[in-house]
């Protein structure tokens, strides 16, 4: 519509100019008329030249940000021709990959000739996750606004935004010790905290308690469960990444961040589990220091949340990991005894289970 208006306006100017030229025999208007006729060609040619040579860069911060803090995105549009473009519209996709939220955004900017135009976007993310911005296309309009060219351009930038959990060192330390103590107690009672990693034929010297009797009967030969020993002095942490409309997951992440940070600060190693939507399985990760924790958190935020509440715990049970006590971080919990829980915002809480 705007282009049509511009065309009509320009055509009217030409007609008016012709009229004045003919009525007044005006040489001035003849010059203007020639200019008016040639200018659109110049303008359209300029757009095509710019199209061939312009470049776009989007630069996001390299370091990880914290939610609620401001970070800067830089758009660099470089035009190495002599033709300026008054109207260029960049179509951008902006979103949080973790929450699978996405929006379309348009940035209208000038493209100066023989220059690099820089636009800075101060962005704030209320939720943690992976901020991703990508350009789909750029629309270049000629000087007269009567012709436009849309160029697909695929440039993207991303930045991780961490939950920025509050300090919960004391509570976390306490619950860690409690979890480990329960595990020790169970072991003393005869519970075995080793995990079954496979089944094989009996080899002389195998413990009797490892014999899989039911299978041995079926196969008519002795079969034993192969076990991997797990230290009882290590806590398992399970994070439920199910989200709801109230964005409770954000509180879960915040709680996870503060608890894991507290564990690392107090040199308390732990194995953390979550359900990876990208991989379609429960993913565990041993964390012994801050670097490992950050790497795990980055991996988590590159993943995606899901809607099914309790999915991670279900997988956890299936893999027989719930035999000993573990720290469950999620929401909608009713089974927590006092002292076994660290409450977060909304309905998020970390509960010692098992």
């Amino acid at each position, binding site marked *: 519509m*705007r282009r049509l208006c*511009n065309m009509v*306006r*320009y055509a009217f*100017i030409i007609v008016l100019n012709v009229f*004045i030229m003919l*009525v*007044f*025999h*005006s*040489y*001035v208007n*003849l*010059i*203007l008329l*020639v*200019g008016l006729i*040639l*200018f659109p060609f110049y303008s359209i040619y300029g757009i095509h030249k710019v199209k061939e040579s312009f470049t776009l860069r989007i630069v996001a911060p*390299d370091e990880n940000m914290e939610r609620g803090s*401001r970070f800067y995105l830089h758009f660099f549009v470089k035009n190495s021709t002599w033709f*300026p473009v*008054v*109207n260029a*519209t960049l179509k951008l996709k*902006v*979103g*949080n990959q973790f*929450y699978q*939220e*996405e*929006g*379309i*955004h*348009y*940035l*209208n*900017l*000038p493209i*100066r*000739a023989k*220059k690099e*135009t*820089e*636009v*800075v*976007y*101060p*962005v*704030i*993310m*209320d*939720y943690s996750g992976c*901020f991703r911005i990508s350009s789909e296309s750029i629309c270049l*309009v000629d*000087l*007269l*606004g*009567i012709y436009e060219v849309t160029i697909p351009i695929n440039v993207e930038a991303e930045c991780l935004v961490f939950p920025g959990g509050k300090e919960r060192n004391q509570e976390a330390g306490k619950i860690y010790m409690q979890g480990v103590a329960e595990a020790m107690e169970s072991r003393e009672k005869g519970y075995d905290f080793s995990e079954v990693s496979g089944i094989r034929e009996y080899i002389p010297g195998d413990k009797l308690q490892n014999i899989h009797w039911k299978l041995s009967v079926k196969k008519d030969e002795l079969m034993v469960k192969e076990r991997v020993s797990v230290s009882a002095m290590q806590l398992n942490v399970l994070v439920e990444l199910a989200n709801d409309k109230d*964005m409770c997951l954000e509180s879960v992440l915040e709680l996870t961040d503060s608890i894991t940070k507290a564990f690392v600060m107090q040199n308390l190693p732990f194995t953390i589990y979550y359900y990876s939507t990208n991989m379609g399985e429960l993913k565990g990760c041993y964390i012994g220091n801050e670097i490992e924790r950050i790497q795990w958190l980055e991996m988590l935020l590159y993943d995606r949340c899901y809607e099914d509440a309790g999915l991670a715990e279900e997988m956890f049970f299936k893999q027989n990991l719930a035999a000993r006590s573990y720290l469950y971080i999620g929401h909608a919990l009713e089974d927590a005894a006092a002292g076994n829980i660290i409450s977060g915002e909304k309905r998020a809480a970390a509960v010692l289970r098992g």
Partner: protein
Amino acid sequence: MLFRKKKKEEVHKGDIFLAKGIYLEKPMMNNGNIIFNCFLRSLIVFLLVLGSIGGFLSAFDISYNYLLVIVVYLMISMYFSFLYALPRFVYRDIGYILFFGIFVLAIYTLKLYANSGFYVCVNAVLNRAQTFFNLSGVREYESQISNDYLTVAIVAIFIGMVSIIILNIWIYSMMSLFWTVLLTFPLLFIPLYMKLTPDSFYMIALGIGYMAVVIFKANGHYLAFAWDTPFKIKGFKERRVVYTQDSGIFRQILITLTLLGFCMVILVESFFSPNAFEHRFKSDRLRDATADSIGNFILLGFAGLYNQYASTGGMSGGKLGGVSNVRPDYLPDLIVSYTPYSNEAVYLKAYTGGIYGDNEWESLYGDPDAVSQNEMDDNTIFEEESMKEQSIALSEAKNTYSARGRMDIKNVGANTAYLYYPYYTLFDDYSIYNNHNLLSSTQGIGAQQEAVYYYYPKIVWEDYLGEDIPEKIDSSQVNPDFLDVPEKNRAVIEQECRQIGLASFMTENEIVEAVRQYFQDNIPYTLKPGATPRNEDFINYFLTRNRKGYCAHFASAATLIFRQMGIPARYVEGYAFSLEAVLDSEMNEGKEASDYYRGYSGIGEAPVMDVEVTDAMAHAWVEIYVNGFGWKVVEVTPGSNETTDEDDFWSAFTAFLSNNAEGNGDGGIRWGDLNLSQYKWLIYVIFIVIACILIFMIGKIGIRKVVRYKRCNQKNLTEAVIASYADICDMVRVCDDDFNLCRSHMEQLEFIISRYSFAIEKETVCQWLEQISFSTKNVSNEEIKTLRSLLHGMRKAIWKAVSLRKKLALCKR
């Protein structure tokens, strides 16, 4: 829930929503220097106004102080550009009020200059119109201040000021092409219509302005911006962020348009000259169709477009009311050869109005068929009694007061339907006093014909009479029509008589004097009283509502007033000229004075003079009939009282600007006297602009360099080294964009070493840099000094390694 939502909205108030949980604060873009930005923005308005007004003046070849006009236009344009860049509307309003005050003060102080300049322009237009339309008698206005060079500049500035103010509003709020064209192009219609072409420079300026408006309007980036908000949010659903204005684009568009404009002019003129273009048009239909109307308009103003009667001065034949103003052409209508005998005005009578009808003085003897023979005879006797008897008496008197004059009147441009003769002329047939309708076919003075009259001068006649009361003429013989006041005028005339203070007991002389004085004191004389509205009576409208007018108004009103007071009166038209006009005339040495005047003279001996009686000397007056005296001329029209004065300060200012080189005869160049035709002035202007820009840029660079030097050589060695390193990084960044990708000191050093082949121990340097930049750990003075010398060497190595183009770029930092 609602509360939380509200709270979140408040947190992100003013931010732009990108996606759920992602918000954008105000985007930033480098807009550049505020002064430079305002300058660029103001250029559009400046070019438009300069193109319009300068184009008009150049087309008529009117010379003016270009430098003054350009500087003032630029300053005003920049001023308003600044106003639009202010963050609050109230500041803009204050700015407007302030400017309005200055404008009023300037108008008040320079009104004479502006008037004079305006007249110079009008005269130039009229001169061209005279040639173009082949008009005779176009009036030339006299300017009160003779320095056209300055006065035209001042009037151009005033008109430009108004244009700039209005254009600013339309351009920076709407970028309206319609209003831009409407405010700038119509002025050029005048020269274009008269086949005059404005200078190419102004046309380029105008073209650039128009194209800039078209471009910015088409793309929508024209709104004035405050400096902290280069973007605005548009289209809520689409989440669109749109920039408002960018000085870089402004500058580049203007440069592009300027180059294209000049190319276009050169291109078109190379292939198609103005003459070749004009020859393509075989006829000028516009001129043919409108020449009469426009010519009439030029002669008569707007009145010329709708007036019912001629108003160029001269005779109107008693017709009143349709004329809004009188615009004499000042060309001679009559040439009168006679010998002056008195310092009083000479009246040449042509038309006598007896009956006041429908906004017209009709002749008493207008229709011979309607007048009985008896009536004619009575009137003839009456006229004879009033004039002839006195003439005969004087001619017969051989004493001191005897005098007789001859007057040759040649009609060179006056209406040929009338006779024009002096008072107290001896005619064989006094029916000559009748009006033109009756006698025009037989007795009017034809074009270029000359009539000879013998007359008995009034002064002699009056002096002869002395204090004696002339013999009574029985007024009962006076035609009662000379005492008639029409019914429609009666109430107004009675009211006017009361206002004047006339009473029945007053003598004729007292009444005449009272009326004359009253008109002089209360009703101003003007040649532009405005036309009498339709369905309004001319005299009533003049006396009750308009209260201003020229001779026909005063004579008509006075005639009815005298009649109301019982004095027979009639309205007379003709020509009247004063002794001043006679003295300005040429002496006719070929004619003997004695042939033209004999007898008593009020001014002594005088030669024969050829007086050019122009249409401006056409006049209307009253004749009253006085018992024992006959018809007597009564002058009731007051004089015009326009005055002029000059301000000493501005006289000095004028002298300063016009530079007295004119008078010293050494051929020196006047201030700002740039010859447009040779484009010299353009070179000066370009030179000055370039010089200013260069000085500005060099100054800016110089200041930056000084600041940088001070930072890098400050007393605090650590800070000095940090500043030096930052400066080196800046140098490298200017030379190579890829340097921006280096995120740490180590990466930066590696980049510099690899690109500029500078050998240093990068780990150590990096360690020192990080220590002095981020760590609290002290670095020894020795280490800092070593680092400093390394950085110094690094700078030199970079400078040596870069190309000349990059060196220039580094110089511009």
